[in-house]
């Protein structure tokens, strides 16, 4: 129960003034600009865009600055801002086959057409702290090489040609949107993917990891992981045709998973899918693994009772803003709630003591 209480305004004002000072830190140190955050903390910016569910690097960088680097707080700011924007419509689905890839690797085919392009990856670094970054160092130029002109084909297209992988068909259905209607079960795959792509990276990672450790194991291979930019097309009512209204950086992961076939289908590989704003590799692989685990029913697999198979558990706990909102509200005043509990405990204790006293008298 919440009760309006007066008082505390001065304390709150003082707390916020101090917060602003602490945010700034030591004024002898140069202040961070939003552009510096956008350019140099790009992966934080990407995470805030993905979980804030709004692609705008400058806004995400501003939110990170305002939140003192607390990324969930920054996501909260972005979600709140998002609700103030009128929505002009929805785009056509981005065509990731036409992505300009910065990175594209496959763990299943060494010699895939388009090759293994590592991109600006942390992989193969030694994870040793680089003290040169603590000083202003000269930056070596990244080498270049002649680039192919054609788009990089998806790995799954090769498996499809052989018929050994399940196909994904577009039936033209308009997807449900959890930002416009409450998230209600049963949730189809489109709705699950929306919840996962904006879900908390740590939560989705933990769920994915649980499948790897044996809770509804589904033997995922990373068929393909690609990072790059895609044009975003939207139908413009005034024009009667679609134009590109922008471009977004995306990370896409397609997993290839074991499947033994069924009475109606020959043995073939199944798929998990991850697509996330920005360079968000860990999140997109996690999303693909959890997507695949949640498909157990449609693929005729057993319910192992694993957390990652439980759509209600996964979808209702993946959103870090819902989670943190409910969690953190318990620190706010609950004086009346607690007073009533206190009264109750006192009453129970008084009753218990009253019962004990006559028994003791009787024993004596």
């Amino acid at each position: 129960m919440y009760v309006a209480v007066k008082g505390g305004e001065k304390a709150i004002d003082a707390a916020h003034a101090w917060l602003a000072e602490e945010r700034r830190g030591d004024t002898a140190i140069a202040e961070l600009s939003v552009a510096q955050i956008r350019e140099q903390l790009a992966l934080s910016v990407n995470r805030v865009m993905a979980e804030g569910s709004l692609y705008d690097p400058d806004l995400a960088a501003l939110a990170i600055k305002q939140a003192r680097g607390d990324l969930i707080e920054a996501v909260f700011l972005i979600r709140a801002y998002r609700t103030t924007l009128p929505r002009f419509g929805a785009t056509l689905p981005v065509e990731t086959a036409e992505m300009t890839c910065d990175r594209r690797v496959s763990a299943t085919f060494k010699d895939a057409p388009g090759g293994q392009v590592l991109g600006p990856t942390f992989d193969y670094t030694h994870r040793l702290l680089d003290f040169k970054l603590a000083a202003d160092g000269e930056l070596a130029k990244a080498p270049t090489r002649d680039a192919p002109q054609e788009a990089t084909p998806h790995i799954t297209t090769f498996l499809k040609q052989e018929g050994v992988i399940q196909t994904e068909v577009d039936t033209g259905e308009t997807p449900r949107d959890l930002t416009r209607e409450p998230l209600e079960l049963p949730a189809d795959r489109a709705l699950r993917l929306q919840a996962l792509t904006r879900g908390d990276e740590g939560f989705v990672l933990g769920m994915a990891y649980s499948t790897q450790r044996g809770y509804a194991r589904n033997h995922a291979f990373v068929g393909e992981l690609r990072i790059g930019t895609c044009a975003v097309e939207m139908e413009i009512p005034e024009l009667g045709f679609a134009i590109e209204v922008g471009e977004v950086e995306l990370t896409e992961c397609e997993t290839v998973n074991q499947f033994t076939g069924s009475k109606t289908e020959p043995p073939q590989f199944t798929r998990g899918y991850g697509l996330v704003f920005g360079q968000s590799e860990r999140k997109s692989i996690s999303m693909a693994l959890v997507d695949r685990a949640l498909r157990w029913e449609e693929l005729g697999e057993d319910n192992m009772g694993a957390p990652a198979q439980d759509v209600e558990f996964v979808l209702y706990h993946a959103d870090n803003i819902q989670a943190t909102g409910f969690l953190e509200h318990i620190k706010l005043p609950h004086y009346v709630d607690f007073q009533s509990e206190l009264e109750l405990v006192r009453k129970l204790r008084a009753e218990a003591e009253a019962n004990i006293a006559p028994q003791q008298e009787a024993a004596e």
Partner: protein
Amino acid sequence: MSDRTALNGDPKQAARKAWMSLLAKAPEAQVLALWGERPAPDHQMLRTPELGSTMVRGRIGATGNAFNLGEMTITRCSVQLSDGPIGHAYVQGRSKEKARIAALVDAMMQTDAAESIHAEILTPLAEARASAKAVRAAKAAATKVDFFTMARGED
């Protein structure tokens, strides 16, 4: 550029789509710098620059049904030149000034000024975009793995 929507083979529509798409994706600073101090032709605002969002969609498994990936910020604006042509803009981000210029450019591309606007604004934007993309592509290409087989020393 991809062309997934029916333009009915209309080259005028295809050209308009191309310049509007170019303006939508161009960095604000470049658009403002190329427009410079030029005076806008006589016009009225049909829709003053308006900030909003669009829901970006993806496809399940890259080829399947659409799903909602998340929104992006866009700004739109519509102008009408006093001699008739109407210009529209839907551009990425939150720059009202970029949206206004993009709408004016769209309108002016339908007038006799088209040739000079093309040369002074659209061509430089396209070149800047192509060179930025080429630099990234060349860096990506340099990270492509060249596999080689280790000599096994059997002979």
